């Protein structure tokens, strides 16, 4: 029983967590549509609504990894569809840079994902989450998180 | 028994005798009596129509005045005659000046107040398909025909009594009721080459070959038509296609009336089988419809 208990505990610790920043106008709406269409995807994802992906600061992403998130998704309108003209364009630029920077922190750059999901793309949203969850599962918990847990133990 | 005036047309006495004869027999089987118009003349067919418009109206006009005397509706089996007679009637109706001119020429009132109808339409309208089904003695179940109207019956718009002049369906329905496995195809109203048969045989061979290819592609084992010219072109030019395009087609061609007679078990159907240039016996034998 004790053994089982620890196994369960371990499982829980091994269990991954994904944080998604969704822009209000396209991707959040796309996620809504996935819901309305009852498309199923794994429940490992929590989302934060922002008005525009342009507002997602690199700091948020680093903070998320520090807090023990294993994968971060940033999803916004397709290029050219931005409600605010070019916010997503800025984001794309910033994310490219950030992916490289993550390596420096010892985080695989696959843990950060940028996707364009329109309000009509419920199916795309669901499949992005499915795919990303698989990918992060394969990568396992974030190295940062392990560090933190280690530190906490010590 | 319903009686109609009947315009046989030239070829039904000679090159399409099987059509002329089977039409009368089939009609009678289905309760329709066809009374031949007295002393009718050739409608002029394509040649008149293509070279002298007035002639192409005046020739059938004489037949129409005879039909007017006979009274009632006029039934036609040949697609070309049907086309010419019907268009002459229509043109004169729409153009009284033309009618007057023609009246002078033929020396009789050319206005025909009856309806000119193709035998296929007459049969399909007077028939209850379920009843027909029950009367079938030899179901054509091994036959996989495609229906072929050709252009003369289907055009111009409004000639056919069916709404969809691009994809008429009466013949399909009739054949299906006789037990055949009718194949859909997109060539029902394509032209067979018409009167170019003797003069530009090359052109006709090409068109006919195309039809055979399409029929085969559609999975058909025979073609059924209502036009003597189509049948003649299809049969005459089948072998030539073999030479020119290096493919062998062996697809018999029937008049729809022959198949009615055959399916209803009337032995006279046998008589006409020998008249086909493409021998239908092997197919019918295989289908258990002929000995």
């Amino acid at each position, binding site marked *: 029983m004790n053994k089982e208990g620890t196994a369960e505990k371990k499982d829980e610790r091994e269990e991954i967590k994904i944080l998604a920043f969704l822009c209000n106008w396209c991707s959040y709406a796309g996620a809504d549509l996935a819901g309305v269409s009852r*498309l199923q995807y794994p429940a490992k994802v929590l*989302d934060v609504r922002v008005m525009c992906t342009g507002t997602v*600061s690199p700091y948020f992403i680093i903070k998320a990894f520090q807090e023990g998130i294993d994968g971060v998704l940033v999803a916004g309108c397709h290029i050219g569809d931005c409600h605010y003209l070019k916010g997503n364009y800025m984001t794309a630029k910033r994310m490219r840079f950030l992916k490289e920077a993550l390596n420096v922190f010892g985080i695989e750059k696959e843990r950060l994902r940028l996707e364009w999901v329109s*309000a009509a793309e419920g199916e795309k949203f669901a499949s992005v989450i499915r795919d990303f969850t698989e990918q992060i599962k394969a990568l396992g918990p974030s190295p940062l998180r392990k560090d933190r847990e280690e530190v906490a133990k010590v | 028994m319903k009686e109609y005036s009947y315009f046989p047309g030239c070829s039904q006495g000679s090159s399409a005798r099987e059509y002329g004869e089977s039409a009368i027999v089939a009609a009678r089987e289905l309760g329709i009596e066809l009374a031949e118009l007295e002393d009718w003349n050739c409608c002029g067919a394509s040649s008149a129509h293509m070279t002298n418009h007035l002639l192409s109206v005046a020739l059938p006009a004489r037949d129409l005045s005879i039909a007017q005397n006979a009274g009632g509706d006029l039934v036609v089996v040949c697609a070309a005659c049907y086309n010419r007679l019907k268009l002459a009637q229509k043109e004169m109706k729409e153009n009284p000046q033309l009618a007057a001119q023609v009246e002078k020429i033929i020396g009789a009132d050319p206005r025909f107040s009856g309806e000119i109808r193709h035998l296929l339409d007459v049969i399909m309208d007077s028939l209850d398909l379920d009843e027909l089904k029950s009367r079938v003695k030899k179901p054509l179940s091994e036959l996989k025909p495609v229906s072929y109207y050709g252009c003369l019956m289907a055009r111009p718009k409004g000639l056919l009594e069916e709404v969809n002049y691009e994809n008429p369906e009466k013949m399909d329905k009739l054949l299906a009721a006789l037990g055949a496995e009718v194949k859909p*195809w997109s060539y029902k109203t394509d032209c067979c080459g018409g009167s170019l048969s003797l003069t530009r045989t090359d052109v006709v061979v090409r068109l006919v070959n195309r039809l055979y290819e399409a029929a085969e592609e559609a999975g058909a084992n025979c073609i059924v038509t209502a036009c003597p010219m189509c049948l003649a072109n299809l049969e005459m030019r089948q072998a030539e296609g073999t030479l020119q395009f290096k493919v062998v087609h062996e697809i018999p061609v029937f008049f729809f009336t022959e198949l009615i007679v055959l399916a209803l078990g009337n032995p006279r159907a046998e008589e006409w089988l020998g008249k086909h240039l493409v021998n239908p016996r092997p197919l019918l034998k295989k289908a258990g419809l002929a000995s």
Partner: protein
Amino acid sequence: MATKRKGKKDDTVDRAARNATKESPSSATEEETEKAIVEPEKEGEGLLGAVMVVGGGVSGIQASLDLVNLGYKVYLVDSGPSIGGVMGMLDKTFPTNECSMCILSPKMVEVASNDNIEVITLAEVEGIEGEKGDFTVTLKVKPRYVDVNKCTGCGDCTAKCPVKVPDPYNAGLSFTRNIRVPFPQAVPGAAFIDPLTCRYFTKGKCQNCVKVCQAKAIDFDQKEHSREVKVGAVILAAGFSPFDPRLKPEYGYGVYPNVITSLEFERILGANGPTSGHLVRPSDGKEVQKLAFIQCVGSRDTTVKRDYCSSVCCMYATKQSLIAKEHLPTVQPTIFYIDIRAYGKDFERYYQNAAKRQGVRYIRGLVSGIRERQRSKNLLLRYLDEKGCMQEEEFDMVVLSIGLEPPRGIKPELGISLDSFGFIQSEPFESFQTIREGVMVCGAGQEPRDIPDSVTQASAAAGKASQLLHSKRYSLLTHAEYPPEKDVSGEPPRVGVIICRCGSNIGGFVNVPEVVEYAKTLPDVVFAEERIYACSQDAQEWIRQIVRERNLNRLVVASCTPRTHQPLFQETLRTAGINKYLFEMANIREHCSWVHMQEPEEGTRKARYLVKMAVEKARLLQPLAEGESEVVPKALVLGGGIAGMNAALALANSGFPVFLVEKEEELGGTARNIRISQHGEDVKIYLSDLIDKVEREPLITVFKSSKLVELGGFVGKFQSLIRDADGRETLLEHGVVIVATGGKIHQTDEYLYGNDPRVLTQWELEDALSNGELPERNIERVVMIQCVGSRDDEHPWCSKVCCTEAVKNAIKLKESFPATDVYILYRDIRTYGFREELYQRAREMGITFVRFEDGHKPQVRRVGEKLQVLVDDAALMGERIAINTDLLVLSVGIMPNEDNRELAPMLKVPLNADGFFLEAHMKLRPVDFSTDGIFVCGLAHAPKSIDESINQAVAAAARAETILSKEKIITEGIVARVAEELCSGCRACVQLCPFEAISFDQDRKVAVVNRSLCKGCGTCTAVCTAGANVIQGFRFDQIIKQIEAAGKAWSG
């Protein structure tokens, strides 16, 4: 059937509302929170401040939104079960390829949540009695059998309904059930029952839906009834019906499964369509590789009595080809066409890009008919290749570009008239005005037109209604009255959490009691409870009560999506005396219960953390003030052409003073050169009438020989400096600017123009024609050359008007001199819409059209007495034709005004690559700029005809009026703010703001946000290295708290 369950989003404070608030004592009783109707004023007796809009497509939606913003109560009637029209079915839209639903659905939500728009579905207009300003409209309302106020759109009934029906939303390509919500984004988002197919109605038993509907929304007792509505004006926006391709039997639609209509194809392309955007064909679900489009099916066709061009199909076929390639790069689209009509703004570029770079194959010449291969169900098409050789090619699928037909159910008995095709007839220069005063028209129901043109006309129609009813503005609007806002700034957070079950939608999958218990453990949460339907009307009362009783100062609702429901709860909170920004939502339905139905435990766990994240954020929420700025109710119009004058008059008619600035000595602009309109009306008379009206209008001040030299301020309060020819300067103050500075004619030296007196422009011909300067015996023959200075490398746009102009002048010429032969040398004839009738008439009259290929411009030389034009005739495979002529007329193009280069930076608005002004949004905001308070119309925007310029002018005026009619502009609370003490002065944000809302204060060396310009996107905050720039409502610390809460998930 009212749809009034959503909250209202009121971002305006208007005069009438203010008066009303002043008069009533402001103690927060419950009655007070009820809506109060303001008594109509005495002036303008007999007019009603309400408008009915018939048809809820994009044009009807735009008209409705404009009308409420202009201060009128709106009844939006649709014959279907939801608004949205055809645009709601489209996948993407040309020429920007934007997602159609993404841009439409926010507008639909806006309609749904506005208290002053009553949506009446399943209804048709039976009669319109009375006079303009005071109509009584009789509606026939069909029963929906579902109470829209109760239905939550959960879809439980659909799952249990035994009757399968083809889904009209998917153009019949897929099946749905008899009872259903029409489509996910439908407004109202409620189910309906079609009695014709319902088993209960046809067989007398079933009622499965009644059994499963927890909201008790189904009501089989509803009856068809008629209803009378009193309004001051009516706008007909009934759109179009698609052509039935069975009428062209040669294409085998309905016989061959892989021949489909463009509307069906649009659904196949749709990510939310029957195949989820996979490019597969109906017969066997096989991926499509070879795809063909056949144009003009049911358009430009005498034999089916559609002698008009449907205007949009050339472009949508191009769009569908591009999108198909986007979905499946290997697909090979081919478009068979007669003329490619890429006439609108940026259309030519779109078409050229598709043809030259994206591999869309365009083949001129229609296929005559379609044949099918029986085994593969592939389709055989015969066409002539560019060498004139016959080809037969197999395609996997064929799309028929079906035309647009008149709407159904709009009849002359309504006092209007229909044209010979059945479209709603309108006045020659004012296409939005029917023959009946007070009844306006817009959208594709008046003439086939695309979305931007429909939207433009909708605004124009709304503006016209306002000109009629402006004295009754606000008289019938309902206004919420708010108790004073409680100051909670000093208090510690007291968070209330409401968890909604949504019947079983949430409750069936998420363990709601568990989430409630969990919520109670969260910091600062003083109240947590569940509710079966949190959005129902009685729940709002309950919320107000607990907010008061429990002394809550933050509210979290865990239910469905904030995109539709946040405004409602914010409104409720506000009526409870709490600032509406102290509210947060957790979406545990769309983002949780519905997508994790198979793992309820994990779903419940996720719901807990979604609630926790919301609570964490809520604890940090601060009340935000909505900004207010004054509006100077005056307008500045730049340019005194037809567009500028119409805009000025429209505003003056609605009671607003206008400054009209014209740089020339006289008004009139380009139109002074045009004699006859396409409808044959005398433009000179129209123009002099117009100038006369403008000059006599006391509310319009005309500044001639003047130009704008400087513009300051922002929406509501601009200051502009204008200078006249003598250098005199005037400073003007106004709330809006309308840019109508026009365009100009292309100056050419091609084809001996300027070198030989027999070579004229169309304008010169028109002049000569109307002055009688053309002696008949000298002109046996006239040749016209099209596209002079258009559609070439230097000018990659179509000038839109010149095909019609040439045809029009040719007809005029032929009427005056029947013996004269006229030849028009062209590349494509672009007589779109009803202009096609002119083209047809020209051919009928014997005017000869000669087509030449791109890159084969005609040559002109002098031969003896005559001019000789040599042209390589494309129809004859490039055979050269020599035409000796007495006159050569050039159809020269329209160029942008050079002044634009100088105006654009002054107004802080963009130009496109061609030098025309670039509007805020090509599709849905065709006359707005992204800079608030500035509008555009006429040739300044793009080439267009007179009537189109007038449409746009009246539309721009109406859009401007939505601002001028407000006393104050209320700006969103969610805007950026720079904490000056932290700002390092790096100016990163200043450069990045897409709306130029941040400026740099040179004295204090800090960035400053102008909250009137800021749109709250947050781009600036992401780059601020000092963390000085924050976006209210999405503050850094708030998001960090959400991240932290998420980080602790699954374990804490």
